[in-house]
């Protein structure tokens, strides 16, 4: 209210003509300040994406210079009929569903623990950031050493405790390689989820809980009836970030398993065709398909939970 009246008071005192030039100046300055970013984005994002689309409709080989001819949708039909690419689609969705699910559960659990810790909150938050900060390549190597069949921690511990599974070659067998891949990803990114959820928890006013306590709600009821519903927006944002990342996963399978034993993902398969097999057309078609899948999933998210996101944006705007 106050700000609005102040504004209207100042505005009419300026001459209308002068004000227009000031607005023009502002617009010119805006253009000047935006253009470096726009130029960079155009060169390194828009142009390559357009070029990738063009390549995906052509037959093109690095080995035979100058050879390039129109291929219509052949690269796309080849990609979709390729059994390796089909398994990559399936593996990527399995990986995304499993890792995002466990990240959510662990993330909420860790956030609750951090929120309720009476002492050492800062230390705990710093420790939780360690897996997040460690490079993905290093994460892969770390879990390789832990699941090493002979000298790794897991097999030694299983054998030492006399439990079954002590002789599993984790990264060399079909269902197990995916399990390790999911564990490694959950370890690295559950903390990110936890921090986003924790930030959401800290915004919930204490009075709400006090009121519920007075009404006789127990801890579990307070969690399911108050905490979870109020956390929904924060959780949804975290879920979107994580899902989009998981669908594009590349470095973890590249280093951990080299895409073997049921761990080849969409990005990995496209890379294989582009770099290893030098099939630029087919590889580009695969990367465009990956892009489309990511787009469809993000639109689906916004469609199904869009109301919540819009609500969040409106609240944020205040």
């Amino acid at each position, binding site marked *: 209210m106050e700000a609005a009246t102040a504004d209207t008071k100042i505005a009419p005192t300026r001459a209308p003509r002068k004000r227009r030039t000031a607005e023009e100046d*502002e*617009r010119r*300055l*805006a*253009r000047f*300040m*935006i253009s470096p*970013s726009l130029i*960079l*984005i155009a060169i*390194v*994002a828009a*142009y*390559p*994406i357009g070029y*990738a689309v063009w390549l995906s409709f052509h037959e093109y080989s690095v080995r035979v210079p100058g050879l390039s001819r129109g291929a219509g949708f052949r690269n796309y039909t080849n990609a979709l009929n390729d059994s390796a690419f089909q398994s990559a689609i399936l593996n990527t969705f399995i990986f995304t569903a499993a890792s995002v699910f466990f990240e959510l559960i662990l993330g909420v659990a*860790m956030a609750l*623990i951090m929120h309720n810790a009476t002492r050492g909150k*800062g230390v*705990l*938050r*710093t*420790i939780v950031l*360690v*897996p*997040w*900060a*460690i*490079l993905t*390549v*290093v994460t892969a*190597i*770390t879990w390789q*050493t*832990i699941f090493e069949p*002979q*000298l790794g*921690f897991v097999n030694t511990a299983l054998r030492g405790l006399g439990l079954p599974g002590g002789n599993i070659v984790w990264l060399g067998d079909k269902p197990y390689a995916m399990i390790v891949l999911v564990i490694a990803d959950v370890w690295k990114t559950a903390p990110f989820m936890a*921090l*986003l959820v924790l*930030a*959401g928890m*800290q915004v919930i006013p*204490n009075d709400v809980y006090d009121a519920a306590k007075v009404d006789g709600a127990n801890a579990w009821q307070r969690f399911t009836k108050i905490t979870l519903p109020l956390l929904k927006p*924060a959780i949804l*944002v975290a879920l979107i970030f994580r899902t989009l990342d998981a*669908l*594009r996963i*590349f470095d973890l399978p590249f280093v951990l398993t080299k895409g073997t034993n049921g761990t080849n993902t969409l*990005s990995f398969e496209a*890379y294989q065709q*582009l770099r290893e097999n030098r099939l*630029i057309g087919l590889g*580009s078609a695969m990367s465009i398909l*990956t*892009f489309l899948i*990511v*787009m469809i999933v993000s639109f689906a998210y916004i469609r199904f939970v869009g109301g919540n996101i819009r609500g*969040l944006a409106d609240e*944020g705007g205040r």
Partner: protein
Amino acid sequence: MSTAESAQSVAVPRARTREARKPKRNWAWVQWVAVVAVMLFCLFPFYWLINTSLKTGPDLSGAALLPPHPTLANYKSIFKNPDFTHALRNSAIVSLTTTFLALLVGSFCAYAIARLKFRRKFWLLALILSITTFPGIAIAAPLFKLWTDIGIYNTLPGLIIPYLTFALPLAIYILVSFFKEIPKDLEEAALVDGATHFQAFYKVVVPLAAPGLATAGILTFIFAWNEFLLAITLTSSATARTVPAAIAFFTGSTQFEQPLGTISAASVVISIPLILLVLLFQKRIVAGLTAGAVKG
């Protein structure tokens, strides 16, 4: 973030917290077990890596919780490997340059979005944010071809330029939320005193937004230090390879020997800068990560 926290601790008087803690007393041990479990979950895998990096020879084929004969031999050997030291230098140059340029270019764009009036602002923001959904692989192949054609394939600028486009949306996103929090009155006062919008930006807003710049800078640095897909697609030799790429191509003295000890040592070394950043700037990083999520 930090303001919300301090506000909370001010609002809750000490007597009340003690009172609130009292009935939970018998649950205290559950809480401690949970806290220790979280710490173990986060730290143990990295400890195992350090443990492996301190072992050599026959010790490497045992799974002792503590290295039986701890040695820094693996560390000495990786620092004698020119491929590794070169990669460290490349990573430092690429990450620092990317961070500096992303802050410079990004703060311009973020200021315009946060403060100036211009047409199609929504579409600009939508464009910038949509870049974060691009799979790196979709631009890797065209960039590989383009960079080969113009001769910057396998060079450091060839990495810095594409890193900028991915670092920019991140930096802009964080900076916009920080710029918006700076009270408008200060800029308006500067404008009334005859400063131009641009002067108001770099003399008033930028110094006040230093914490935001630090946050965006740290996250950009971590992104660039971590990046892998473009690092292996756009380089072909040690001249331009960054550490993640170099480590992925590390091979033992023979083809069949997995040099687990040295790879672990190299992994520990390249994690140190990031762990230092986390230890020093935990609050900034959390503020940056949650900037968009909570406030919208």
